[in-house]
């Protein structure tokens, strides 16, 4: 095994182009588990932690450009107001020690269907910024996940950043697990209200081969919600939203849960999360600015 230690982003891209089989490593919370437990042995590790610009995030218009090296701990501390859904999901990742190391980009690179970042990224329409020596490619999040632990990155590409719209309405994340820490999701759900476009975003995790949007549920709720009157959420709308979210899943039975349980739990989580988000929207006098 080789250990590649680029000192700049340009050098990292060169190394990846020359060694496309190299596995990028950031926080190590997935990569090192594979190696420690001998589940896989990369031909080379490409350490991205020395590259300072990856550790930065910036505001670009109404989008947060989240560098690939920004840890969950920093996202929680610094971006809770801009990215409330993703920050909520980040708080449920592992433990403090894991959140001090793990990154959203690492979650995307691993592309586990159970990764906690994915549902909120789907719900708010994030874009993955992939880069190689050939140039930069912007991959809409809905096209990023291509299979179980597979993503749309080309062999010579690295994730430079994730571009996430700053919230324009309430966002919530919900996750089922056996305890409140150190849990891989049995299933998970995120909702994001875009009060300007009057759209509802819905992302599901750990209930299909890939994280996925619940498009039919999104369209239904976007049209059925009382955006002008801001009346209470119609229980029938909430229930139907939950049913459509559950219908968009394709879960399996595995060690963490049964498919039938996942389908049921998704419907419940979606119904409740929409209710929490809608209550926040109604309580917001400012006409739907970010919470």
């Amino acid at each position, binding site marked *: 095994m080789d250990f590649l230690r680029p000192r700049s982003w340009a050098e990292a891209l060169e190394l990846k182009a020359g060694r496309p089989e190299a596995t990028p490593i950031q926080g*190590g919370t997935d990569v090192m588990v594979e190696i420690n437990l001998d589940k896989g042995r990369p031909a080379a590790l490409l350490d991205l932690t020395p590259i300072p610009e990856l550790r930065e995030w910036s505001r670009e218009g109404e989008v947060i450009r989240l560098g690939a090296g920004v840890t969950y701990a920093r996202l929680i501390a610094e971006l809770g107001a801009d990215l409330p859904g993703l920050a909520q999901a980040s708080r449920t990742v592992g433990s403090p020690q894991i959140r001090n*190391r793990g990154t959203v980009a690492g979650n995307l690179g691993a592309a586990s269907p159970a990764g906690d970042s994915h549902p909120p990224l789907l719900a708010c329409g994030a874009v993955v910024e992939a880069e190689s020596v050939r140039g930069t490619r912007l991959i809409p999040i809905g096209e990023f996940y291509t299979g179980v632990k597979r993503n749309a990155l080309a062999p010579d590409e690295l994730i430079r950043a994730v571009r996430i719209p700053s919230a324009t309405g309430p966002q919530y994340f919900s996750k089922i697990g056996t305890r409140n820490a150190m849990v891989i999701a049995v299933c998970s759900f995120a909702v994001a209200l875009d009060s300007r476009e009057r759209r509802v975003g819905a992302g599901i995790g750990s209930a299909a081969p890939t994280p996925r949007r619940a498009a039919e549920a999104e369209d239904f709720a976007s049209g059925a919600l009382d955006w002008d009157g801001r009346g209470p959420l119609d229980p029938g709308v909430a229930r139907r939203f939950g049913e459509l979210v559950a219908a968009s899943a394709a879960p399996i039975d595995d060690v963490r849960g049964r498919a039938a349980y996942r389908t049921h739990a998704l419907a419940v989580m979606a119904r409740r999360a929409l209710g929490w988000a809608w209550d926040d929207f109604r309580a917001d006098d400012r006409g739907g600015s970010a919470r």
Partner: protein
Amino acid sequence: MRVNVTVNGRPMTADDVWEGESLLYVLRERLGLPGAKNACEQGECGSCTVYLDGTPVCACLVAAGQAEGREVVTVEGLAPGGGPGGEAGDGRRGGRDGALDEVQRAFVDAGAVQCGFCTPGLIVQAHALLASADGVPPDADIREALAGNLCRCTGYEKILDAVRLAAARRAETGSRA
């Protein structure tokens, strides 16, 4: 490969490090610092918690090469004299004359140690909590801070007592953990 890392204030070098090796393995097997414990090797148990550039992390999930040029503090380095100025002088044996850091002292006094395997990780993690907290943290904060450290003996009550005790003593004396 060679890895240069400052551990408990002392520059150290490990040779013939395998590229897939963890920082934990380097500390325990190459640098003679067995304080951080090797249990789950997947970041689940927290017994290998060390400071990396001032932030508590699971040493089992840090690739050895990622520690190059960085600063690590292990449980051996917490006590006064546990660093390079200590009697042992090599950062290996903890504090001089059995000196303990106040978190370590509180674990002893509260009876928070049974088999002791999880203790080093809990102490480093509690140390980090108290370093950033004012006064005695609420129980919810202590529980959250220690959520990634598993103990199979104590049922955690004595551990929570120890953290409260250390925090209360620190608040009394006005010192920082």
